[in-house]
């Protein structure tokens, strides 16, 4: 039996784009079992009405008093009848020709397939350089919460196996625009995640919904996922552990750094330490070099034997046999 495909189109003021898009989708799905669910947030331009007129394989969910792309997607998924659930933007930027490829990959691997602008073969039409840069930064930030290796976690074009979605839906807290990011962050380890290269087209009509509020929502979404221990939060914690330890070592390395930079100076320090050890009868490995400076060095001598070890800090001038107890024993 052929799997059924449910495509969710979240809409808000897409009346001008929707008819052409539905035709493209119909052409792409030729010979496949599918349904389209338009989830409209009560658009002032009456997008929902246009979708209802199409009828046939198109079902409409008109949400009154509710806004948000992520929640629209999850509500659409919840009423979908398909074995494969998918979502794409209704503004014409996503190419419906990718849908059959995505359907095949989901049927084969029972995982997730996303249309990626950054996968090999993918691209973005008409963006200025600053927008490319901002998108790259936001993508890198989003990757922090991704368990799986993907290139475009902010894509709005993806398909997922129904049973896989059912397994993770209880975790999802739909907010903002990036439901895919939320989904990827909750995918079980070992889930197959494939990417189909997406040529991101220019919006056909209407206005982009990207604004400062959306950006802040995205920031909050990533942070809250990190706080829930998703994706790379362990990696970040690991990086913090390494960084704090490195910070502890750094002053100690800097204090004696000259012996590594200037080999002749290093050899002189070594000779001086051997001389002092010999004069004092110390075992060389009981001496720790704490600081070197022009004309002298600071060492800590610790008597290693069982029980309480005595240790003392000394400032030693080069070529002098006098040991001075450190004034500020640090």
């Amino acid at each position: 039996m052929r799997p059924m495909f449910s495509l969710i189109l979240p809409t808000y003021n897409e009346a001008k784009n929707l008819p052409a898009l539905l035709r493209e989708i119909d052409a792409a799905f030729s010979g496949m079992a599918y349904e389209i669910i338009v989830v409209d947030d009560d658009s002032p331009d009456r997008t929902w009405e246009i979708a209802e007129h199409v009828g046939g394989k198109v079902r409409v969910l008109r949400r009154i008093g509710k806004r948000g792309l992520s929640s629209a997607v999850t509500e659409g998924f919840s009423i979908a009848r398909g074995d494969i659930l998918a979502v794409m933007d209704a503004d014409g930027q996503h190419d419906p020709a990718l849908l059959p490829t995505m359907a095949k990959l989901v049927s084969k691997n029972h995982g997730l397939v996303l249309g990626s602008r950054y996968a090999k073969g993918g691209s973005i039409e008409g963006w200025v350089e600053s927008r490319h840069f901002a998108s790259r930064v936001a993508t890198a930030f989003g990757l922090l919460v991704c368990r799986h290796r993907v290139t475009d976690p902010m894509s709005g074009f993806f398909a997922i196996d129904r049973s896989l979605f059912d397994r993770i839906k209880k975790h999802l807290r739909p907010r903002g625009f990036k439901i895919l990011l939320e989904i990827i962050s909750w995918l079980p380890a070992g889930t197959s995640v494939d990417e189909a290269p997406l040529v991101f087209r220019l919006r056909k009509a209407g206005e982009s919904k990207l604004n400062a509020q959306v950006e802040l929502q995205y920031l909050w979404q990533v942070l809250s996922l990190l706080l829930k221990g998703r994706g790379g939060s362990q990696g970040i914690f690991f990086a913090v552990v390494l960084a704090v330890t490195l910070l502890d070592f750094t002053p100690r390395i800097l204090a004696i750094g000259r012996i590594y930079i200037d080999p002749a100076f290093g050899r002189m320090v070594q000779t001086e330490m051997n001389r002092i050890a010999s004069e004092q009868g110390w075992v060389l490995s009981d001496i720790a070099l704490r600081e070197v400076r022009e004309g002298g060095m600071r060492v800590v001598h610790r008597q290693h034997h069982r029980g309480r070890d005595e240790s003392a800090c000394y400032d030693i001038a080069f070529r002098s046999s006098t040991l001075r107890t450190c004034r500020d024993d640090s």
Partner: protein
Amino acid sequence: MTFIFGMYGIALALLQWTAGGVRTDEAKYLLNIPYPQPPVMRFILSLTENIPHQDLLWRILFALILVWAVTLVWNMSEGLSRTARLFLSGAWLLSAAVALQTGTIMMAPLTAVQALVIVAVAFTKKPKEFSPAFLFLFGLFWLASLFTAYQIVLFFPLVAAVYLRSSISRWQQALYISGPVILVFAYALTNPFILGSFINAGSENLDIPLSWWVWFLLREWITGGSLVLSILGVAGLILHRRWELLLSFLLVSAFVFLSFRDYYDIYFTPLWIAGAVLLFRAHPPRDGWLPWFLVPLTGVTILTAVLLPSITPLGPAREVMAMLQERHATGAILISGPFGHQWQYESRFPVRRYEPEFLGETQAVICLNPCEKIERSRFEKIRKRPEVWVKRALDSDLD
């Protein structure tokens, strides 16, 4: 079985303990001397400094870690016949490298167990299914292992393979693989003796003829798996060409070749186990004769114990220091000639190198090399080998 293996480990630990005393390297770890090894394990050891028979405690604990690591071998060989798994477990426990180092307080056996953990993780069939939490914990293990002994870096390719096959992002892979290595390198820079010891270890044997080096390396390969496991291991590594195992094998070989230390043979054992598992997976052995291979393997171990005894009397440090302790005197103890850290470990008093001008403030002098300028009027000899001189009672009272 756990109990029997535990008893086996404790028996070997007691055997080491009866040699009387500690080796210089063992003393270095027990006293937390910051050179050359990093701090994690030696810090933990030093926390028990005040416990009587501290060395016995750690001999037993280290021995138990080494013998109970056999469960890793058992898990790694899942899918093989029960006889093959029993053979591999026996090979771990009875190979010369493991059996003769069980009960020592050295970092090499501990590193070998850590390497076995890494090999076992690298052998998991589906690394893609490792959860981020597991990979995080494995990263901490890798970090702790590097801060236990630098030599674990020889198994870097295996760690890299685990992360590269996992499904986490590239930046996390790079972080987990390289971050700990960079950190331990930074730690090494905090103490110039550490880098100095690396250079010494690599250059101190340069005057030894090449044929000796090659023979030494061959000997280490053999004792690493008591010949039988070594052959199976090498065959498995070569036939199956897993890059991470081969690279680790080359790194360990190069390190052993340069360092010339008997006890590094144990670094080969986890690799031999891995090679043997691969071999048995591809060519399941006939169970009937497999257990008999443990006989020559044990034979090689016994032969190694006789020809290259590692359980030998550990010198008179414990005896001499106990003798001085009984005198209830105070002051430093001077030692003439080169001496190991075991003298510091056994002493309850500061130990200094002998110089005649320190005689005034000492209670005793131990002459491993001839001592010059000892005044017989102030010191009396109480032992011949090594010569031990103690301050006469009157002189001691005056001080």
